[in-house]
């Protein structure tokens, strides 16, 4: 393969990351934030898969294995996030992070 394709794939995953970041910066709804975080995470996962295919691995963990682990990790994160959402919702009846700004300065 050529470096060009590397660049193109990097562009893809980079775009994914960018989308995730954009979502994190602009959304106020906690659920949407969780989704954005997921997107960002998946950019990394995608990279691992791609690079594994492209470069193979010299030693240590293989890219695919890492990808699988990361999927699991992402799921855990989401679970924790949802737990916090629930508590937050029960506490103040809203999941808008824009309203939770009592701690400041």
């Amino acid at each position, binding site marked *: 393969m050529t470096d060009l394709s590397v660049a193109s794939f990097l562009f893809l995953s980079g775009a994914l990351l960018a989308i995730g970041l954009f979502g994190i910066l602009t959304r106020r709804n906690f659920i949407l934030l969780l989704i954005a975080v997921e997107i960002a995470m998946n950019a990394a996962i995608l990279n691992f898969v791609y690079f594994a295919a492209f470069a193979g691995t010299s030693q240590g963990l293989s890219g695919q294995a890492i990808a699988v682990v990361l999927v699991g990790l992402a799921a855990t994160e989401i679970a924790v996030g949802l737990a916090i959402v629930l508590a937050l919702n029960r506490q103040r009846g809203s999941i808008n992070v824009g309203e939770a*700004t009592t701690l400041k300065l």
Partner: protein
Amino acid sequence: MAVSFGIVGLLGTRLKKLEYGGWIAVGFAAAAMIVGLLVAAAEMLSPGSYTDQSFTWLHLPGSPGTFPNGFSLVMGSLVDPISALMLLVVTVVGFLVMLYSIGYMHHDHGLPRYYAELSLFLAAMTGLVIADNLLEFFLFWELVGVCSYFLIGFYYEKPSAASAAKEAFLVTRIGDVLFLLGIFLYFTVYATAGGGAGWAASGFKFVSGSTPFLAGAMGGNTPLLTVAGLMMLAGAAGKSAQFPLHAWLPDAMEGPTTVSALIHAATMVAAGVYLLVIASLFLGFTPDDRLAIVAVGGFTTFFAATMAVVHPDIKRVIAYSTISQLGYMVLGVGAGFAMVGMYHLFTHAFFKALLFLAAGSVIHAVGTQDLFKMGGLRKPMRVTAIAFAVGALSLSGIPPFAGFFSKDDVLSSVYTAAQSNPAYWPFLILAYATVFLTAYYIFRAWFLAFSGDKSRDPTLPAAHEGPWTMQVPLYVLSALAIVAGVLPFTPSFGSLFSLGGATSVPPTYGTTDLVLSSVSVGLGLGGILLARALWGNGRVYVLAPDSALQPMRTILLERYYIKAGYDWVGLRIVYGGSRVADFFERYVIDGTIHGFERLGTKLSNGLREGQTGLVSDYASYVVAGVIGLLILLLFVAPLIIASLGGP
């Protein structure tokens, strides 16, 4: 021996609180006088001998330039003919003034302080006289200075007194720091001289081992030597109130009259001349120095006398005359005849002290110093009148009074010097003119005070003579004012007028040159007659308001505006400059600090504004940080490292 005198003074100070502390002080002064007389006698019995005892005060480490091996500073006492002579003067006048004070000061408060300070002064003065090296000399020199500071400011409640004291200290201080530089130069000169190392090690004493003074060791005409001499002159000018450092002495009259008599007439102000006298030997003035000295002395003599001509205050008249007479002494030294200056110092001490004490008893009697209020005191105060007259005649240089001989010697010595160096002529002329002025102003004072039949100001109290304690000193001093002139002709006493074992220099020029003598005497008599014509028999000569002399009179009364000039410089230039600097200090240098302080607070609060509490903002900081890091690592850092010449 210095120690013993020190003890005298210190004991005097210890006895502040006692009743009759005055008498105790007088007792110590008497003891001092007896010692002084004994010393002088001993010295006369073995002419030209000197005894020196000293101990090392400090041993200082080296300094590459002049003293690579370090050197010593010593404290000691040197008794040689001239110091014995000076000792004599100091102790005798000191005792008489002490005695006089008993009567004169009896109704003043703060007497313990007065006697303590006066005793301290006597101690310091004796110390100065017998100092055996220049540093010790300087030490006592400063001490007498501070004593005079205290005593001028004795009536410290009077602002004028306080300010006069300050002025005296300050003006002499200017001379002193230059004198200090002179001492450095002197050290350098000697440390680098032949065999100077040993000299330095032994503490730069005037006397070293078996050789008396290092007379002429430094001969020649090196610039260093010239500067050293000039610095000595500066110091002397400060102490002896020579132009341009003269301004303090008239104001010093704010102190008690006794103080004026002792310190500002007979002893301390003469210390300057004494310094020049001994310096002329241990340093050896270069021709340039001598010319400078003569110039200063000659000019001051005339200059001061002119101011005395018009002054209404009896003490200030005498003060100006003191400056003028000191000028004569300086003149004598400058002319190259140190002993002549010494001779005039000797006689002057007595007749000037006499004048002051007489004036003092007048003031004591009538309670004012304004000549134009006095008058007709001849009858009630016969003793004083005669004493004053004696002093005046002596001052005017009328034979056979003491002043005649010494002043005549000064004049003829300058004349002699002028033969070889025409540059001296103008000053000789000034000196002669001064003879006339002197006679005039002193007798103007005498006639104003004593002639006529009643005082001009009826409000004055009825005058009377002071108690015996005040009269005795007058008698004694009058006697001395007459005989002091001829004493030196006796070989034994004359031997005191010698320096460093050099053969006695009998001060006898005048007697040989009748022309010169008669000229000066004639001028003196002329002055007296003029004074009598203008002021005799209670007359008052009033200058017409439109007279051409009027502005001149004001100039003289204003002391040629020199004092005013000093004040202007002090206030406008120095003080003003310091105000400006202070402003700069407060607002420019300090302002920046305030700036930083405010900046810190602003930054802190501004940054905390960023803690909005909104998580999205925090996330955006993170993202911004990431972008920043990417730029830094990918673009900035490589370039920087490359520009630094690679890893």
